[in-house]
Each structure stands twice: as structure tokens, then as C-alpha cells.
């Protein structure tokens, strides 16, 4: 069944209404955990984009840290408006990822992963040793204002949650539209065989650098959001475990759908909260066991399970098209 524009608008309106209701009705710690998951999901979208091109990035934490530190430093320059700071966060990610993306555009496979890891670890070392960036203690961030309105702490937290939710929906939608676009199809083709794509006259290098910049923008945005919510940033943002967490979110969710990173980030946050309250000293054991179980039982990601569940409740079956029918359709289109 194809969604009409009216249905899509209704879905967005329902999502926003649900988010607003949740923001005011839920306890602060649950809201904070969900917001953390949404922020990780936004950063994870960048990893998902790169993974669709066959590139495993272990350096998404660098752009995340760039966004967070960009916001913290802008605050020191008396820049306080939340929307302006969001642009600063995204731009910090974009500038960093442009340099990194151009420098490592020729690397593939595990070498791409290791180089991104090396660059983020070098950044971690530099930030840890830089007094101007707070060293290992980090920097405090000034509470942001909303279009010159200064909110008290509780209202600021609710407002940041709402803003994060809206941005998560917008980012997820943009990534979905990108996947459906011609450029999105090119990315999938690069994963399958980049030499063939080059033979078609498309620049693989330019496509991959663009993807890196998009990944940087998403992670920078996420870093900016986390800086304005927790009001503190530190070098750990660039540490390799932060990047691995984003990869984990994407691989657990699968790369088929832009909603998958959000679903897996929420699941991970739930498991972490449950494990931390039941076994505070051994939450990694529970997390690791859940990860292993998921990978062994659902190797294509939990999104497959969710998609299967939603199909069960649909009255109409999706249109089934055979390969032969596709060829005929294509030939008819060519003839026309």
C-alpha cells in the first residue's frame, strides 16, 4: 500500500503529539534515557549511510566529539541560542568529516575502519592533553536559550527532548528519502561493485566523500544535542568505545531501514538500564549476552523481526513483483 502525502502528514502529526505527551508524562530518567537513545540513533544514521556503501567507520565518535566541542566552545563565545548552536554542531562535524573524508577516500574494508579509528584516537589524545579543551576533565557547557528565552533546568530538559525527537524524525526521513533517490541507489551499487559504478561514469570517490560529510553532519548534530542536554563534554566522546557503540546500534538494527538504528538504540538503552539496575556490577555481561543472542538468532538485525511483526497486522500484502516482470516493465519504459 502506498502512503499518500495526507497519510504521511498524519503519521508525523501523531508522532509529534505522542512525543509531546511522552515528554510531559514520563519520569525524567526515562525521558533522559530515551533522549540518549534518539541521539545515538541520529549519530548511528551516519554509520548506516557508510555501511550501505560497504564502509565500516570506527571513527564516528570523532565527528560526534567535534559537534559537542564546537557547541561548548561557541558557548564560551557567548553564542547561546539553541538553533544557532545546532548549526555550529552540525558544521563542526561537516568541516571535520570533509578533511577526513578526502584524506581516506581511497581506503576500503578493514583499513578504512582502522584509519577512522586511528584518527579518532589521535583526536582523543590531543583533546586529553589540551588544557584549552578541558583535558581529561572536559568542559562545562552554558545552558542554551530558545530564541532568547531562558528556560529553567526542568523545562530546558523537556524542550531538548522535544527538539531531539523532532530532529530524529527529520534525520530519519531525510536518510529514507536519500536511500530512495538515485544517489542512494548509487551507494548500494558501490557496495556491490564499485568498479562497475566507475564504468558507468560515476565518481565513487566523490560519492563516498559526500557520504562521509553527511555522516559527519549527523554525528556533529548528535554531539551538539548531547552537549546542550548534559551541559558537559569531554575527551571520552572521541574514544573508540563511543564509535563502537554507534556501529553496534546499526549492526544490531540492520541497515535496511532508517528507523532501525533508533529501534536498536532504544532496545540497547532498555537492556542497559535493566541490566544496570538488576546487576549493577555486571551489566556488560548481560549486554554482551543479549548481543550474542541477537546476532546468533537474528543475524540480519532486529529490524527484520519488527518488519515481520508489522506485516502480520497488515490487511494488504505488499505487491509481489518477479524479476521477469521487472525486466518487462523496464523494457516498456525504455520503449516509451
Amino acid at each position, binding site marked *: 500500500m502506498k502512503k499518500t502525502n495526507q497519510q504521511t502528514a498524519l503519521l508525523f502529526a501523531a508522532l509529534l503529539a505522542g512525543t509531546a505527551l511522552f515528554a510531559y508524562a514520563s519520569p525524567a530518567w526515562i525521558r533522559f534515557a530515551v533522549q540518549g537513545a534518539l541521539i545515538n540513533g541520529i549519530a548511528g544514521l551516519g554509520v548506516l549511510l557508510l555501511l550501505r556503501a560497504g564502509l565500516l567507520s570506527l571513527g564516528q565518535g570523532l565527528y560526534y566529539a567535534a559537534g559537542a566541542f564546537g557547541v561548548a566552545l561557541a558557548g564560551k563565545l557567548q553564542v547561546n541560542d539553541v538553533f544557532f548552536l545546532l548549526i555550529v554542531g552540525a558544521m563542526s562535524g561537516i568541516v571535520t568529516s570533509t578533511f577526513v573524508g578526502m584524506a581516506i577516500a581511497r581506503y576500503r574494508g*578493514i*583499513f578504512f575502519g*582502522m*584509519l577512522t579509528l*586511528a584518527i579518532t584516537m*589521535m583526536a582523543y589524545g*590531543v583533546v586529553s592533553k589540551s588544557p584549552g579543551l578541558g583535558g581529561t576533565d572536559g568542559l562545562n557547557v552554558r545552558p542554551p536559550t530558545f530564541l532568547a528565552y531562558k528556560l529553567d533546568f526542568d523545562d530546558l530538559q523537556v524542550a531538548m527532548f522535544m527538539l531531539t525527537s523532532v530532529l530524529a524524525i527529520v534525520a530519519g526521513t531525510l536518510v529514507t528519502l536519500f536511500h530512495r533517490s538515485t544517489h542512494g541507489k548509487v551507494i548500494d551499487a558501490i557496495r556491490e561493485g564499485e568498479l562497475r559504478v566507475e564504468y558507468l561514469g560515476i565518481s565513487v570517490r566523490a560519492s563516498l566523500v559526500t557520504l562521509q560529510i553527511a555522516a559527519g553532519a549527523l554525528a556533529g548534530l548528535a554531539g551538539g544535542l548531547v552537549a546542550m542536554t548534559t551541559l558537559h563534554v569531554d575527551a571520552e566522546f572521541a574514544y573508540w568505545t563511543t564509535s563502537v557503540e554507534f556501529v553496534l546500534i546499526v549492526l544490531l538494527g540492520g541497515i535496511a531501514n532508517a528507523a532501525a538504528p533508533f529501534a536498536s538504540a532504544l532496545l540497547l538503552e532498555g537492556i542497559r538500564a535493566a541490566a544496570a539496575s538488576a546487576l549493577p556490577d555486571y551489566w556488560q555481561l548481560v549486554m*554482551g*549476552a543479549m548481543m550474542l543472542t541477537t546476532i*546468533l538468532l537474528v543475524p540480519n538485525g532486529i529490524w527484520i523481526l519488527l518488519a515481520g511483526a508489522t506485516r502480520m497486522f497488515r490487511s494488504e500484502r505488499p505487491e509481489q513483483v518477479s524479476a521477469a516482470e521487472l525486466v518487462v516493465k523496464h523494457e516498456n519504459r525504455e520503449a516509451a
Partner: protein
Amino acid sequence: MSLLITLLADGLSYAAWLFLVSVGLTLVFGVLKILNVAHGAVYALGAYGAAFGVGICVERGWSVAAQFGAIAVAAVLVGLTVGLLLDRCVIAPLHKQNEMLILLATYGALLVLSDFAKLVWGGGSLYANAPRDALGTIDIGGLAYPVYDIALVAVAGVIGLALWAVLTRTRTGRLVSAVAVDREISIAMGVNAQRILTATFVVGSILGALAGALTAPKIAVMPSIGPSVIVLAFAVVVVGGLGNIGGAALAAGLIGLCKAISIHLLPAADLFVIYAVMGIVLAFKPYGLFAAPQARRV
């Protein structure tokens, strides 16, 4: 002159440790084509096993030889048990899956095993410095240097040479190489590839556990040592060329020397010098120092 000798001694000692930590990882990658993140947990469990064994020996007043025996037994027992467990429960069920998924599964195993060590031995630090202290120190360039650390250089050399000899001079080694080069053809020629893959994974795990066990007398053994060591091991393996044992040795030497130079002459760069070396090497040799050329897939 004494600074140069100190740099060389420190660099060589650190390089030997890096080689011990990474040789099992590169062996497993060379044959199974997987990056085993759980190698860090095997290293940590080896260190815990050795600290536990040495602790018992010291408590009962047994000799230094018995303490070294405990280190070796702990390494083999931990490597064998955890290696087989990982191979049967994680690696074998996923052998047809994407390598990234296997990498993620081994990361899950790392989390489980790291907390398992905490569950058994607690969250505090364990110390097993008795064998290192018993060997005393030696004067190198006016600096008292632990004999144990120098001995580790020799142990790393022996392990490297033994692996090279087994892989290139024995029938078993040739079978391992055959499976590494082309698994399907090896099976068609009657080689039991699954047995070779399992054996290689277990040997890689024993080497990881041995690295941990030999490191235990030098450090405070605690749950966080596994995750922190695996990234260093990855850096060495990638710089040397994935799956290349000679490359890992050279990479360990290069990184060890750079680390020693940064500690003594540029302490501010100490935290990231390893990654800087990796970045520089990969900028000029994109697939590592000794990687075989790769054809582009059409």
C-alpha cells in the same frame, strides 16, 4: 649515549610485548579471515589465570620455577578452554555470515568474558609480581632494568621463530597455509579444513592467553586490561599487514621504538603515538607493510 640505550631497551621491551599480544590475532586473521575482538578478553583471562596461579605458588612457598610453570599452565588452560568455547559457540555458527557481524559477535563475547573475570576474581586488582622480582635487575646504560622484561624479548623471539618454522617447514603448517589461501580447494583435496580452522583459532587463543599470563607479573591485573589492549593489537596487526606474522613483528618493533621515543622525548604525544604511526604507515602503504597486493573486484 645512555639515552639511546634506554630508548632501545624500552622500545625493544615494549615491542616484544606488542608482538606477544598481536601474534595470535594476526594468525587467526591470516587463516580464518576474522578480526577477533574477544582476543582482548582471552588476554585478560590469561593474566587473571596467571595471577591466580602465581598467588597460590607464593602462598604455599613454592619455588620461582613453579611460579613460571603456573604461568605456562594458566595460559594453556585458559587459551584452550576459552578458545574452544568461542570457536564452538560464536565463530562456527556464524562462519557463513559477514565478517563485520562476526567482529560484532566477538565484541559481545569480549563484554561477557570481561565481566566473567570480574565475577570470578572481583573488581579489584590482582598482583603477581613475585616471579619478576625474583629475577632481579640488570644494569643497562646505567639504568637498572628488570631481567624479566629482557627475558620477554627472548620469549617473543622464540615464539615468532617457532610459528614461522611450523608454518613454513612442517606438513601441518603447509596445510594451514593451504586452507588460508583457498578453503574450498583444500577441502576438495581432502584436507579437514574445519579441524584446521578450529586448531588455528585455539592456538591463536593460547597465544593471547600466554601474552596476558606473561604480562601479569608486570602490571596490576584488573577487568579493564582486555578492552584497552585489543585496540593496540589491532594497530600492530594492521600496520604489519593483516595475517602477516613477520609484518606484525616489524610493526611491533616500529611502534615500540616510537612509543619509547615519545615517552622520553615527547610525553605529550604518548597517548596517540601508536595511532599516528598507524596513520602514517597506512598513508604510504594502504594495506600495511607486508600485505599482498589485492585485485579490485569487478
